[in-house]
Structure formats: structure tokens, C-alpha cells
């Protein structure tokens, strides 16, 4: 049976390894600084007693003033499941580090988020359009996206 870690308990564990990474928590959610996503992920994937080896999903939500990137992780050895989020501000070129070096499964998901939301993942080796075709303008999943006039 999986246990869902609360944001608070996760924050306490993360703060030991990556100080200044945690921005806040509420119930099961935990917000971390976008620039420390890679460090936190590295820690979570190797930390004893956690070892989050399965990256369930990466989602991006457009809150107009910021993008929220949501990571769902599962530890198959410890039967733990967590969520952590990173708020990325700015609409022109929002960016945060890629976690593809830790979880290969992030590849397509990060490409998809870049394609549809326009959030850049620094360090992704092959960040190009995945669902739409090369040369498409704009990122259609943003809330302010308008279909170009024909």
C-alpha cells in the first residue's frame, strides 16, 4: 500500500539536504524553488529511506502570472508517493532545470510541456516540438493562446 507523504514531512527531509530549496507547503503539496528542482530531484532519487525511482508525471499549469510545474513521484521500494511543485514566473521565457539526467521518463513529458506550454527545461538534450510540428508558432495550452486567424 502506498503512503502519501505530506508536504510538511517532505519539506523537513528536503531541507536537510538542500537548504533554501523549500518555498512552502500545504497539505500534500510542497513548493520548491525552480532552480533547485534538479538538486532536490537528485536527492529524492538517491536519499536512503525514500529512493523515488518512478517519475509518474510532470504536469504544467498556467496560472497567468506564473507556471506551476508539478512532479508526481513514487518510490517503489519504500512505497511512498509525493508531489512537489515549482512556480516559474515570467511568460517570455520561463525556465527550470531538466530532470532527464535522473529520470529518463522525463524526456517526452518535458518536451510536451515545452511544446504546449512553452516552459524551457535547461539541460534537456532534445528539446523540440513533440505533439505539434516543427515551425508551429506559440504554445497552445497557455491560457492566453488564441488560434491564429486563417
Amino acid at each position, binding site marked *: *500500500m502506498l503512503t502519501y507523504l505530506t508536504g510538511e514531512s517532505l519539506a523537513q527531509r528536503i531541507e536537510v539536504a538542500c537548504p533554501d530549496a523549500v518555498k512552502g507547503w500545504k497539505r500534500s503539496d510542497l513548493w520548491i524553488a525552480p532552480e533547485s528542482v534538479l538538486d532536490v530531484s537528485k536527492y529524492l532519487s538517491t536519499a536512503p529511506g525514500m529512493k523515488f525511482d518512478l517519475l509518474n*508525471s510532470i*504536469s504544467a499549469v498556467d496560472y497567468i502570472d506564473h507556471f506551476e510545474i508539478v512532479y508526481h513521484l513514487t518510490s517503489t521500494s519504500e512505497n511512498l508517493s509525493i*508531489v512537489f511543485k515549482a512556480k516559474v514566473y515570467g511568460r517570455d521565457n520561463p525556465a527550470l532545470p531538466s530532470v532527464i539526467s535522473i529520470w529518463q521518463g522525463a524526456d*517526452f513529458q518535458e518536451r510536451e510541456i515545452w511544446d504546449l506550454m512553452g516552459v524551457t527545461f535547461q539541460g534537456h538534450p532534445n528539446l523540440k516540438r*513533440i505533439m505539434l510540428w516543427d515551425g508551429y508558432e506559440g504554445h*497552445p495550452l497557455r491560457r492566453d493562446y488564441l488560434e491564429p486567424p486563417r
Partner: protein
Amino acid sequence: MSLSEPITVNVGPQHPSTHGVFRLRVTFDGELIVDLEPVFGYLHRGSEKLAEERTYTQVITLTDRLDYVSSMINNQAYVLACEKLSEVQVPERGSYLRTIAAELQRIASHLVATGFLLNDLGALATPLMYCFREREKILDLFEMLCGARITVSYMRVGGVFQDAPEDFWPAFKTFLEEMPYYIDEYEQFLVGNEILLMRLKGGNTVSKEQALNASITGPVLRSTGFSWDLRKVDPYEIYDRFDFDIPVGEQGDNFDRFYIRLQEMRESLRILNQCFKQIAPGPVRANVPYLYRPPAGDAYGRVESPKGELGFYLVSDGGIAPYRCKIRSPSLLNLSAIKEMLVGWKLADMIVTLGSIDINMGEVDR
């Protein structure tokens, strides 16, 4: 070392064996695959964007069209996410009907996967026809439940659309009695076939670590010998009441992926039999309004679909439509390690591996 001049071939998007409009840009050295790159998006319909424009109930019809051979389970994943958002309590009978529909759909999906895998092996549609014969019966049952066969839209937030009609139960019972015989038949004819064994055994393996690292779930992950089934590890709905086992493979090769599906059909039948015994009369749907407004917040609902972990990440702003509906599609992520699985193997293995991973382009491209 290259034996001949490498040539690059676009396998797909129009190719008989890429299960839809999947495209692989493959570099061959003779028949050997030296490099490949998957290209997606030929069936991209923007389901996630469309979901933002529709009410919570209307989105159910979109989920039907994701993995169109397992619509029931897509429905279930979505309504589970909705129920997590607002903590709706599903009536007992509703949960049972959902489980019955989902497990029937799992059998149907595995039948399609097995049939098309054999078709990819070159068995000229004969096993496919035999698999579809049983799938028809399941679709007939769905027709009784909700009037539709493929795009069912049977489940609703808080239960199911309607109770099963009277004539559903005898038909369901007949199906439960007949199906084990047919699964035996598939197993006897397919697993006893030497050519099938020669083709499937030992090829295109993926290790447990590799699979987990690449976010691979479902039968592909279980074929590596790792027991990971959300129905067991994170029981949703009423799965904790049932007694069933998880078949796992040993080597993570094509054969294990194929054989696990056959075994999972048997386990699904066990669940269905228990459902049939346990189901009691009662309401099938909680009182949820049509224009249902969950409180602001987010929820990640996931189920074990026939392909793997199917998740819906829903964000609500308190309105009648989801603010964001992210679909975690197992078909797409199961392709993460496709390069590792295929490089060094032959053209024919590529087709078989695509079949044994059981991708569905409706879900990959969404």
C-alpha cells in the same frame, strides 16, 4: 561497425503495423536497427485544451477517445480524479458496476493487444479474428450497459450513468462461464507455437531499473519481474476487497509482455466473478449535479489501465470546467525506452516490440 551503407526509413505514419499513425525514423544497417527516433503528434487532438472548454461531465466523452480500446478505464481514471477533487462518495453498487466495466474493458484491451501482436508477427489475421470474436461479446455487454460499444462514456462523477439492465446479468454470467475456455484456447494455440516462441523469446528486453527510470508501467514493467500494479499497491475504488494475483514475467522480453496479458485476463475474470457474487442492489450514482463545481484545488487520480498507469491531473478553480486537465498517458511513457529496446535488433523485431508494448496512438498523441 557498419556492414553496409546505413539507410534511413520512415516507418509510419502510414504503415500497417504501427498501431495507428505512429512514426519512427529508423536508420538501418541492412536489416539491423542502428538508430531510431520516435515522432509523435499525428493524432494530436488537443484533448487537454478541449477539456478546459467543457464542463466536468462533458470531459468524460473526451476521455473515451484517448485510448479507444479501453474507454471504460479512461472514464474511471477521470471520474476518480474528479471525485478526489471534491470528495464525492460513490455508492457501493456504482463502484461495483465501475469495476465490472473496467475489468471487462481490460480483457477486451488485452484481447486487442494479443490479436494485433500476432498480426504483427505475420499470422495473417487468424488469431486477431479469434480474439475479436470474444471482444465482440464484451462490447455487446457494454452496449447493454450504456448503449455504446467503443465510446462508452458510462461513468459519471459519483457513480455510473445508469444501472445495468435486467438482461445484462444472464449475458454477463454466460460470458464469465465461457471466457476461461477461450483463454485456454489462446494459450494452447499461441504459447504452444514454436515460431511464436522463436520470435518472441529473449528479444528486446528491458530491465526493471531501466523500465522504472523511463517511467514505464503496466505489463511492460511487470514483464521485468517486478510486481507493480496500482490495483494492489494503491487500491482505488473497491479493489482492496478482491482476491487476485499479479502475473509478472522474468526477463522483460516480448514473450513475457505477451504472456502476462493472457494471465491478466484470467485474473480479471477472477475479479469479475467476485464482483458478480458480491454486488448488491442499491443506488448507482451519488447526487452530483450536472454542472458540478468542485472546490478549488488539484488532484491526481490514477488507475491501472491495460497499458499502465493512467493518470489525470485536474486543477479546479471552482468553476464548471476544469482549469487544467493533464493526462498522464501510459502509452506515451512506455515508449520512453524504445530506443534502448530496439537498437541492435532487426526490422521484424521492431514491429513485434511495438505490438508487445501495446501502444495506442489515441493515447500517445491525445
